[in-house]
């Protein structure tokens, strides 16, 4: 009969090594995880990345500062607005440019809508990974509305390229604010609908409570940021700690979890969407009149120096480390990719759990391979 060795690579142990990905329905792109299994239990997991490496940081070095912005769209392609926000913020701080308040508020609106859109994708795919199909479609219906708003504002739906050094390239179109308000006003009801489907569902709880637990100390040690860190109970949000744009003027709360498990991270993200709605509503109410672009030189040449500026992306702290030699191109433009660093904790979080939990944990880390591999 057939050769049993083929399916059992370790003849003298019960362990089986299995390669999840790079083409696998639940690895969110091209993540590959080499998993060592003892039956269904995970002995060890080793993420292998780099399948989507495009050398973005190398490309940055040949671009002008504004020309680098479209490339940042393509890192975390589910959250292009926050990516743009980080880069332009870094360069503006380097040059000492103050952004007109209207532009700043527009940025906040775009970024918070983007956070909602990104969390929406996360929710849909995470639920799909755990086996609930329908939330995927419900969430994407809402996301379409956000993308429509983006399309109306900047002409693109996914890779926005919607911010420039010194302000915003366009003002809001006629009626945009009203349409945005309509969207954010109806959105909490939709969140409640999804929560009715999942939050108290006993199967959902069985699959998420106590899965992928990471303690607060461990989370800091592994450098987690964003919802994974907050889910572990660390009150840490760049928007509060180092407020950029006008985040110090709007009211919002930072949801934190208590147990550091997948369920807490789920609750944190759901609450973050509501807080984002709050922020957008306040921004729309406060939106000042005025120009959207500061006076910036045609060729952007930051002074010699280095700066690190980070924004709270949907996935965590998204940092840009810009080194300028005084020229029109960045000498070095490094990105602190939140997903890359969050993914590093994957083996820690899944060790000793079951195969199904691996999928849940990959989902809860909310990784985007475009940003991990850059």
């Amino acid at each position: 009969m057939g050769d049993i060795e083929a399916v059992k690579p370790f003849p003298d142990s019960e362990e089986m090594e299995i390669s999840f990905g790079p083409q696998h329905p639940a690895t969110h792109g091209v993540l590959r995880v080499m998993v060592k299994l003892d039956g269904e239990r995970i002995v060890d997991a080793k993420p292998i990345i780099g399948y989507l490496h495009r050398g973005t940081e190398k490309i940055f070095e040949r671009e002008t500062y504004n020309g680098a912005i479209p490339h940042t769209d393509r890192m975390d392609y589910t959250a292009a607005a926050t990516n743009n926000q980080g880069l332009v913020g870094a360069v503006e701080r380097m040059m000492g440019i103050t952004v007109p308040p209207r532009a700043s508020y527009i940025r906040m609106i775009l970024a918070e809508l983007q956070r909602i859109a990104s969390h929406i994708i996360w929710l849909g795919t995470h639920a799909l990974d755990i086996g609930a199909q329908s939330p995927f479609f419900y969430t994407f219906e809402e996301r379409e509305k956000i993308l429509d708003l983006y399309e109306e504002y900047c002409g693109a739906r996914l890779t926005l390229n919607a911010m420039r050094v010194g302000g915003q390239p366009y003002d809001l179109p006629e009626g945009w604010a009203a349409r945005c308000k309509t969207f954010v006003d109806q959105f909490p009801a939709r969140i409640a609908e999804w929560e009715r489907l999942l939050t108290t569902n006993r199967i959902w709880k069985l699959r998420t409570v106590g899965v992928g637990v990471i303690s607060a100390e461990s989370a800091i040690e592994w450098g987690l940021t964003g919802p994974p860190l907050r889910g572990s109970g660390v009150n840490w949000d760049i928007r509060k700690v180092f407020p950029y744009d006008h985040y110090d003027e709007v009211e919002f709360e930072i949801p934190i979890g208590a147990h550091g498990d997948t369920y807490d991270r789920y609750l944190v993200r759901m609450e973050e969407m509501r807080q984002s709605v709050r922020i957008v509503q306040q921004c729309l109410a406060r939106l000042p009149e005025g120009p959207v672009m500061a006076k910036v030189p045609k060729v952007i040449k930051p002074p010699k120096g280095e700066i690190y500026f980070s924004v709270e992306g949907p996935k965590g702290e998204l940092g840009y480390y810009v080194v300028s030699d005084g020229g029109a191109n960045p000498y070095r433009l490094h990105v602190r990719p939140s997903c890359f660093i969050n993914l590093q904790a994957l083996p820690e979080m899944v060790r000793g759990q079951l195969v199904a939990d691996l999928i849940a944990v990959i989902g809860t880390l909310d990784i985007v391979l475009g940003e991990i591999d850059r």
Partner: protein
Amino acid sequence: MSFWGFLASVVPVELAQGLGVTGRFFFKRKATIQYPEVKLLPKERFRGMFGFSEERCIVCHSCAKACPIDIIHIADHFEEVEVEGKKRKKKVLDRYDIDVKRCMFCGLCEEACPTKPVAIWLTTRSYETAAYERNEHLYFNKERLQSWDGVRAYPGVVTPAKGQMPNDPTGGSGEPER
């Protein structure tokens, strides 16, 4: 555990609640758009296929410089032209090619264009830009950028030949219909 807590843990109320949510969606209006028959109209600012106007172009190369991935290729030469009796040197466009297959539709070329109205724009409200062959069909020279031969027309698409301006309020083809 109290009696009601126990009962709630045994009777799957929340599962029924979930079934209720999906059951309600069963009767809701569907979000599907039957694409080839029904076509969504892009918004005013939608960045689609390029439009180009040779008359407006002053051959300043700004777009080519602004392009992050260098897909705009421009060649020019100087020509003596008689303008109002004076002899002037004028730049004349030899070649204006866009390698659209690599384009990422960031719109920086349109922003960089100094002429008013701009000589290159992406707000043509077209999105059916796919082609079967990438090297020939997606490499646009200046004639093709202006004429758009062979582009399938759908309501709302405005070819450069129709003379649409990027910020033309009439949009060249009237009000969009959905």
